[in-house]
């Protein structure tokens, strides 16, 4: 743990960048076809429910990250194990994000560049910024949020005025019934991206106004859910259901369809800017959580010593995670979603919450 303070505004921005960018760039809810936007809304609602658990959990020990209070709640042995699980989880998730990002960059810009180089470069930047501390990271996010906002507004304006939007593509709503949509949303969109807000449990101790924390994160989840839903609506209405379900990066395809009336011929560059900035902060948050988690787990006073080794681990992990893109998609979507995300995002926090509750009750009883 370092001595730092981040404001609720910065927390909101971090949540927004963290939740939104990755989801709008990679395909999202494609199996639900034209109802992808509904899965976004349901995912958001589920994410908010999960966050309420996390928030209640963080109230037990507001000044500690989850890796610390797991020890206090479940005892040193089990607690340590749980903390270790979380550290590995953050590391693993971070590696997934990097790999996804690198695959994207390689597939449409740097076709001849090995993705090792992309990953390495990205990690160098991430290491530099994390070395400056969480305060600097969140301030940088605050500034880059303005850039993202500008880019997104420009892009959306161009897309919406391009004449490609056909709202008929969104019909019929709920063609395949609620059940299909719900199946896609739970656990699919609930865990990615909304449930991943659990990583902010590592940042909560730094927030300066703890009272506003709950409101802030829920606002962030609401905004990002609605925004993702909106982007999915735009994607479907521009691309049509068929193309939307087939394309790897729907938003990229959407923006490539814009004809050059404006000074910008195609919006690939804007898309790339969004992807890099968003990917950067997502990776940074995961790596930071990993580092802080490791530092608290093993009682290492200066987290900065861990930056280089853990970045190396993340680097190797992101390469070793899958040997090709298809395997990566399989790992990322199927395996992780069911065997990793559900226990980490739902079961363990719930157990922690219950045990914590019982302990609190006991304490209150013995005090009387």
């Amino acid at each position, binding site marked *: 743990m370092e001595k730092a303070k981040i*404001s609720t*505004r*910065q927390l909101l921005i971090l949540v927004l960048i963290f939740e939104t960018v990755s989801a709008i760039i990679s395909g999202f809810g494609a199996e639900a076809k034209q109802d992808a936007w509904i899965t976004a809304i349901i995912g958001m609602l589920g994410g908010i429910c999960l966050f309420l658990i996390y928030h209640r959990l963080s109230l037990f020990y507001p000044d500690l990250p989850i890796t610390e209070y797991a020890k206090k709640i479940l005892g040193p042995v089990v607690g340590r194990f749980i903390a270790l699980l979380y550290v590995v989880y953050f590391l693993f998730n971070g590696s997934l994000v990097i790999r996804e990002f690198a695959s994207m*960059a390689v597939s449409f*810009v*740097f076709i001849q*560049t090995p993705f090792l180089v*992309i990953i390495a*470069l*990205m990690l*160098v*930047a991430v290491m*530099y*910024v994390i070395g*400056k*501390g969480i*305060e*600097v*990271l969140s*301030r*940088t996010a*605050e*500034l*880059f949020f303005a850039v993202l906002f500008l880019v997104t507004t420009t892009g959306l304006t161009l897309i919406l005025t391009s004449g490609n939007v056909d709202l008929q593509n969104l019909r019929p709503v709920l063609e395949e019934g609620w059940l299909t949509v719900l199946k896609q949303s739970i656990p699919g969109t609930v865990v990615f991206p909304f449930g991943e807000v659990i990583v902010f449990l590592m940042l909560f101790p730094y927030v300066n106004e703890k009272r506003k924390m709950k409101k802030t994160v829920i606002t962030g989840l609401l905004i990002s859910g609605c925004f993702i839903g909106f982007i999915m609506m735009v994607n479907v209405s521009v691309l049509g259901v068929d193309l939307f379900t087939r394309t790897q990066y729907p938003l990229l395809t959407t923006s490539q369809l814009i004809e*050059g009336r404006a*000074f*910008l*011929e*195609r*919006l*690939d*560059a804007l898309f*790339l*800017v969004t992807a*890099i*900035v968003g990917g*950067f902060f997502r990776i940074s948050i995961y790596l930071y959580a990993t580092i802080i988690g490791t530092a608290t787990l093993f009682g290492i006073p200066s987290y900065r010593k861990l930056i280089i080794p853990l970045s190396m681990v993340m680097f190797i992990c992101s390469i070793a995670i899958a040997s090709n893109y298809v395997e990566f998609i399989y790992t990322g979507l199927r395996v992780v979603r069911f065997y990793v995300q559900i226990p980490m995002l739902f079961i363990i926090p719930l157990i922690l919450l219950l045990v914590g509750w019982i302990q609190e009750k006991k304490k209150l009883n013995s005090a009387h």
Partner: protein
Amino acid sequence: MEKDGNERSKSTVSSPHWTVPSVPIDSTKLGVNLEQIRQKTGNSGDIIIREFTIGSDEGLQAAIIYVDGIVNNTTINQFVMEVLMNVMLSSTQRTLNDLIQVITEKVVPIGGLKSLLKWDELYDALLLGQTILLIDGSNEALSIATSGGEVRSIDEPGTDNSIRGPREGFVESLATNISMVRRRIRNPNLWLESMTLGQVTHTRIGIMYINGIADEAIVDEAKRRLQKIKLDGILESGYIEKMIEDQNFTPFPTILATERPDTVAANLLEGKIAILVDGTPFILIIPAVFNQFFQITEDSYHRYDISIALRFLRIVMFIISMIGPSVYIAATTFHQEMIPTQLVISLVSQLEATPFTAFVEALLMEVIFEILREAGVRMPKSIGSAVSIVGALVIGQAAVQAGLVSAAMVIVVSLTAISSLATPVFSIAVSARLLRFVLMISAATFGFFGMILTLIMIIAHMCSLRSFGVPYMAPYTPVMHVKNNPFQALPIWMRHLVPKLMKRPTTEQVGDQDNA
């Protein structure tokens, strides 16, 4: 002790003879003291020692010592020599004990008189342009304020020009500079603290702030950092700037230097602290945040809507001067698809004709421009036109016709150069100049990807900077309410908001500093 002094002045190599020990003047003999001064100053021709007798009839042997050129000769002649030589002293006043007091109280009609008992005080006073009076039989010296001499008269500032606003700029004299600030803020709470820095040069430094507005913690911190400076010489405020910065390893300036008294006054009113250094017209203002380098005091003199637009324009110019060539390189090398097709065709046909890649071209042109600029700064004015003619040839049509660079590159480089020159504060324009090359390299190797990662690192670096504890990117991040935020640059009558940048009482509370 005198012997000791003599030996020191002779053995120039081994001992630090440039220091004057703080020892009392123990000899009462005029001749001995004068001899010691002659020895210490190496019989320098500009140290004038004039011996005379006090009183019109056979009086006391005395001498005045002053440094020619930094004193006001008229004052010495009229109000020191003349009165001392013509004074009628009664026999009781002649006793040595009373004499200094009598001279102070009744004889010399000059404001600043001070009695000195130590050698180092004596030399300090002498070299400040004061006249030293030594009297035979007394080991007490008297310094008389006669500073003067030729200094540059107040003139328009060389940098920091403005369309509207006062025309005067700071000069090299500390006293004049202080007076220029005082004339603008007529308030007893405008405090000045003096110190002398530089073990050889004994340069005078003034720290100016408005008591009650300036944050006391920052004032103390500034004083603490100044006192820690151990340098032989301080010839310009730049020496001090480097010693008191929060962080040295950064291309960005964290201290603002200005030549304009109205800028200093405006900043003092905002709670900033000014550091004045004798011998330079550049006054340092601390703390200085990034935003401050883009807002000039003149903004407040114009209509606010124009000012907001201009401030915005300046930031845009700064960004262009930083990323201009790299965007061109990235777009032409990696992201041709984002350029309209017709433009791409014409660009490619231009690039066909040139032998180099966009990066090499840009590097070539940028380096040529930097050379021209450096030449423009140092060259004698009489050959200025030659450089501009040659410059127009090198960065211009001739270079394109020679097939060295493409025409588009000329436009990009010129735009970048103009943007960089239009940035109001030189020190921040320089940082963009440096970072431009870093960004060019990253754009040439990894296109927008490399560029954006570099930009993220640059901005993270800027966010990590602090100027005397104030975050460098404030008020943008962390968000703060200040009256000079470009996005809320209000008309002057609405600016009752006092900057929260540094916590302190409002302007209305100046005076009762107890609540600070």
